[in-house]
């Protein structure tokens, strides 16, 4: 039986977030050639996003475009999503496990009385079908879950930076032979409920690199000692084209904005390289970064717990080590 896979795209400014392409990779892993792959984009100013979805194998790109969708609002976005799902009846709906996905996916799951598997980091398949792996207990264990036969559709949120981002250069969708490029379809924007109204959005994201999607992150903790102490970290991040992150300790102390916080309450990140500078390695911090590919810890205290998860540990003063790293990388990368 052929299946419809629906990816709910997510915008960042005028562009699609990388997690949308990662969701497409998840679809690539599950779909077969007679399935149908569709995408829903909700927002205001979707042209660029639509262009970047001109991928062979995507049957339709549905656009719910309206000025009211400029900022995320659960009520407004959900009415667009619900209309889309009622019209298309997908068997599988995928979101990023992001502020938006974490909010919309359970609304849809409750509305359809179906199952949702959250925060998926990989998909496996055996004779019983697909199984989904996800971290639990703040990353201290991993669970494998599957949908029961009672679940229709399947609702999945995928953790950013765990699936490779799909591009037509590095892969082909199983449906590419039947559809060469997607048809773009505009969806009407249902009238808002007005039960919630967005008054204001203060953008705090510093820099242009999204923390959740950065390949290299340089993080500082209470050990940076002041707001100015973040300077050397910013310089290292700049040279490596990475992003700056922080522990809650640093945020609480007022050295940086909470937007940078990594951990259980902050962002969950899985970069290629994570530098932990002056961070002790509390479990709540580890919950947000322990799945990074390579972890480098710089700390003056040889007993700091961060060294137990680090691949490479440097016992030393971050104010001495970090600028040296910047100098060396700069030499190397020119």
């Amino acid at each position, binding site marked *: 039986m052929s299946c419809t896979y629906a990816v709910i795209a997510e915008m960042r400014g005028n562009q699609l977030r990388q997690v949308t392409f990662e969701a497409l990779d998840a679809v690539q892993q599950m779909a077969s050639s007679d399935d149908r792959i569709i995408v829903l984009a909700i927002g205001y100013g979707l042209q660029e996003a639509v262009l970047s979805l001109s991928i062979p194998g995507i049957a339709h790109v549905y656009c719910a475009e309206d000025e009211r969708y400029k900022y*995320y609002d*659960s*009520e407004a976005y959900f009415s667009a999503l619900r209309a889309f799902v009622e019209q298309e009846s997908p068997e599988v709906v995928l979101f990023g496990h992001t*502020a938006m996905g*974490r909010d919309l*996916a*359970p*609304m849809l*799951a*409750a509305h359809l009385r*179906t*199952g*949702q*598997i*959250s*925060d998926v980091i990989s998909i496996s398949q055996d004779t019983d079908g697909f199984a989904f792996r996800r*971290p639990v*207990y*703040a990353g*201290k*264990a991993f*669970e*494998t*879950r*599957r*949908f*029961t036969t*009672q*679940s229709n559709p399947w609702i999945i949120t995928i953790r950013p930076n765990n699936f490779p981002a799909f591009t037509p250069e590095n892969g082909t969708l199983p449906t590419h032979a039947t559809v060469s490029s997607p048809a773009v379809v505009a969806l009407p924007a249902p009238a808002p409920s007005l*039960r*919630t*109204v967005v*008054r204001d959005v*203060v953008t*705090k*994201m510093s820099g242009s690199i999204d*923390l959740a999607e950065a390949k290299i992150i340089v993080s500082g903790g209470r050990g940076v000692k002041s707001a100015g102490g973040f300077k050397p970290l910013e310089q290292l991040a700049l040279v490596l084209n990475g992003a700056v992150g922080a522990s809650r300790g640093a945020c609480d102390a007022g050295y940086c904005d909470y*937007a*940078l916080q990594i951990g*259980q*309450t902050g962002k969950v990140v899985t970069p290629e390289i994570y530098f932990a500078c002056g961070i002790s390695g509390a479990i*709540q911090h580890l919950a947000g970064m*322990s799945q990074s590919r*390579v972890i*480098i*810890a710089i700390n003056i205290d040889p007993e700091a717990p961060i060294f*137990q*998860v680090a*691949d*490479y*540990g*440097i016992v*030393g*003063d971050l104010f*001495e*080590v970090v600028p*040296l*790293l910047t100098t*060396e990388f700069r030499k*190397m990368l020119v």
Partner: protein
Amino acid sequence: MSIFVLIKQTFDTEEKVVLTDGVLSEDGVKWVINPYDEYALEEAMRWKEAHGGTVTVLTAGPERSQEALRTALAMGADDAIHIVPPEGRGTSDDEYIVSSWIASILQEQQPDIIFGGHFSVDQGSAQVAVRVATLLNMPHVSAITGLERTGDSLVQVQRDAEGNAELLDVSLPALFTAQQGLNEPRYPSLPGIMKAKRKPIRVVSAAELSQEAALEPRTERLALEPPPPRQAGRMIAGDAAAQVQELIRLLHEEAKCL
């Protein structure tokens, strides 16, 4: 004002996770109120102190969950409801089922405002509270870091969305999930603890609740495993200059990520 707080008893995240045959070993584990639910409870108490009303805490979980309800009562909640799941595994970790139980109780209670935690630190799926709001056909705002009453049935909340701060007006009844930063939860007071001992807990068996005859789980756990072992890290010796040189060499040659 009828104020409800959804809480879950979780193990303390500082605890070591021990798995025996794919099941979390509960031996000697310290159980707490899920930290995000504590923020929710504190916000409910503040609402009550400012505007009046009663605070009812609600949980679905095993016998031991009553300790969490007692703690909440000691912090000042007025009433407590304990939904007891049926015997056997597989229902109380299915978000569809748990949210259906909670919604069916709340349906009869007609709350004006509901608070929950942004997610539980054990399962971490961030589903139940949002599902409950949807089942009750109520608006919700998740991950709030601030809340202020601006009208008779109007509140303004601040929401944390990937580091951006959003300001929203919401009409009640509504549900909110609490993010860290919303407030600083109080500790139970000694008189509070004494009083809590005498407060009754309403115990409801889930079997009495589910109108949809027998609720069937929508998802099920196949396995629970420890994280893949991280290879023991390597400490890089020497003075700062030597450490930096060696790190760059290792990133190149061993980790191959530069």
